[in-house]
């Protein structure tokens, strides 16, 4: 168990800044997920913590000790990377047991540890097979088991579930999370899948272009995204974004569409946050699909739309509606259905309204 800190960490590859002054504190026993699109610097950050990359600036600190100059093997971390290299001549069991054998652990203890982790990852029935006889998903689980069979200070994992099929991934993420809650080992986990991040993390650190965008609990980053990037990246379907301008005199937003300008009066709960705005401020109104209500009759504050398309997912319905070129995506229970071309009015839940500065992208 350990606390991990990144202090002003910079990593460059030639002209490219892969990790750009990242500051991050990961608490003892915490499950922290580095989330972002490909190329955002999340894997490089993880590899820097592991010691597989030497950082150009800043410090990696474990339990208040700077470890920049420590070799990977001296950092007491277990890795599981996307490119899992299993020993081809060893069975799955022996691959998993390998890190324990190097610690001179007795056979009985090894057996019980490997069996335990094998049971959790549901791979006991493939213990006797060699890697060449395993599917990609099974190989990945063996690699994960090999990392988790040890009790190091820190687990470092890079997309360990990416090769599994959808249903197994759902099972495994719950299993991994449960294991981590039980053993309380500090874990840094990299993924590009926001669903996985929301499901598993104590806190999520979202990166883009090498820069840390926001660190927070899943609930915080979902409910109060720090900027447009985070707002767009977290949640599926994405938050709806509507370009608008602030009108101070009426405390409202002007929403330009093809033919006219819609006026949206800001509800009272937004008054405090809008005090810093001036007349004409260029904004983006953000609203999650589940925070839009659909009405079949005109309502106060309602925007008239026509119904475009339904995506019925079984557990929920995703509705696409439009007012001119302004498209809005709405999430409801599967019971709500409308017909294509039907006139509707949509209104926004006051608690769900978020405002962003259109130029900086920052939340207001």
């Amino acid at each position, binding site marked *: 168990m350990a606390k991990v800190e990144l202090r002003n960490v910079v990593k460059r590859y030639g002209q490219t800044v892969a990790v750009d002054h990242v500051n991050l504190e990961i608490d003892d026993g915490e499950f922290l997920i580095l989330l972002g699109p490909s190329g955002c610097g999340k894997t490089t950050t993880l590899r820097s913590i592991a010691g597989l990359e030497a950082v150009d600036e800043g410090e990696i600190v474990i339990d208040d000790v700077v470890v920049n100059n420590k070799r990977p093997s001296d950092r007491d971390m277990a890795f599981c990377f996307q490119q899992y290299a299993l020993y081809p001549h060893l069975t799955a069991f022996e691959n998993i047991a390998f890190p324990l054998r190097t610690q001179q652990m007795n056979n009985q203890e090894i057996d019980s540890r490997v069996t335990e982790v094998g049971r959790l990852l549901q791979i006991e029935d493939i213990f006797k097979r060699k890697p060449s006889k395993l599917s990609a998903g099974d190989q990945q689980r063996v690699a994960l088991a090999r990392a988790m069979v040890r009790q190091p200070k820190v687990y470092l994992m890079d997309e360990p579930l990416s090769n599994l099929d959808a*249903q197994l991934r759902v099972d495994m993420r719950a299993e991994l999370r449960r294991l981590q809650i039980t053993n309380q080992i500090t874990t840094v986990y990299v993924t590009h899948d926001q669903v996985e991040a929301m499901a598993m993390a104590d806190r999520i650190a979202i990166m883009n272009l090498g820069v840390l965008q926001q660190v927070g609990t899943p609930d915080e980053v979902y409910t109060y995204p720090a900027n447009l990037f985070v707002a767009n990246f977290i949640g*599926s379907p*994405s938050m709806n974004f509507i370009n608008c301008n602030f009108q101070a005199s009426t405390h409202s937003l002007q929403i330009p569409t093809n033919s006219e300008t819609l006026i949206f009066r800001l509800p009272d709960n937004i008054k405090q946050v809008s005090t810093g705005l001036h007349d004409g401020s260029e904004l983006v109104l953000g609203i999650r699909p589940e925070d839009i209500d659909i009405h079949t009759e005109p309502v106060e504050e309602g925007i008239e739309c026509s119904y475009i398309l339904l995506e019925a997912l*079984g557990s929920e319905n995703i509705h696409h509606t439009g007012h001119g070129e302004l498209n809005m995506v709405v999430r409801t229970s599967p019971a709500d259905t409308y017909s294509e071309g039907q006139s509707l009015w949509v209104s926004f839940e006051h608690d769900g309204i978020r405002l962003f500065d259109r130029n900086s992208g920052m939340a207001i």
Partner: protein
Amino acid sequence: MAEINIISLVKRFGDIVALNGISFNVKHDEFVTMLGPTGAGKTTTLRCVAGLEKPDGGEVHLDGANINALPPGQRNMAYVSQHYALYPHMTVYRNLQFPLDKTALTNDEKKARITEIAGILHIEPLLQRYPSKLSGGEMQRVVIGRAMVRSPQLFLLDEPLSNLDAKLREELRFELKRLQKEAGATTLFVTHDQIEAMSMSDRVVVINKGELQQIGTPAEIYSYPANTLVSSIVGTPAMNIVPVLVENNQFSILSNGHHAVLPSKYMNLLPAGKYQLGVRPEDVKIVLETSANALPAEVLVIEAFGYEKLVDIDLASLRVRARVSPRIQVKVGEKIFIQFEEHKVRFFDVNGTLIRS
């Protein structure tokens, strides 16, 4: 447009039976999706329809006529595969024009056609660019445009969204669906992604290991999966499957004997014996106090997604998942009770086949 009938299609590759008597049809202007895991036979079926594979048995009919002997070039179908290649040395405009080169259209007609397609796909601003200057999503639209430009009778799409990142996939599945509605094109679509299948299709054909499992609208397949395999392919997380014993119009959980009253529509329908009860995560209700039909359980893991929570529950050593409102407050390790939404519960026999009530 066109209608396709696939009749008892069989295809072998050496000893492997890739398709074992697949039959279904795609009606005029319909969007039909073949869904199944890797190796199910989806792509093979699509390639047989396109004429790229010769079936070992069965027939493919286009508008009532057997086309088994018709070469691919004469089938007037557009085939878009996962690995889409645009000509890198040609602009988007030239890429779109290419399939028209050998047609009898005048230059003005070609231009009008390309402009129309570019408008539908919102790629007008890209026409003078080269493929290397396009994003993944833009490239995808150009590939679809190139398939559309010849006004084919039928679209055959093989995982056209699978190489794209999640956000783009979300956008394009909506665009593709809208496009298909506007253009009114008969479409046969292949995917392993149940969300794409659910959200885009008029009907879904579920296949596995070369065998047809079920054909139906997304809602039918979701609500009444023909068997436990389909129930596990459609919906994430999958439908919960709980082994139960039915006796005297009650069912009991096999592993601990806790029992509840059988849903009314199954009353007197199920002879005493072992069954598999299926219930979707959103139809598992968490209650904090015991009552009739409440089964004692314990919270194992909570996944909070903002708009919903998934709760992993231990029910007599069985794993059950509930999809609940974010307002439901439970803690890991908490003892709870669960109830199954009565009219949403399904029963499968021990072989996994749905019992119709």
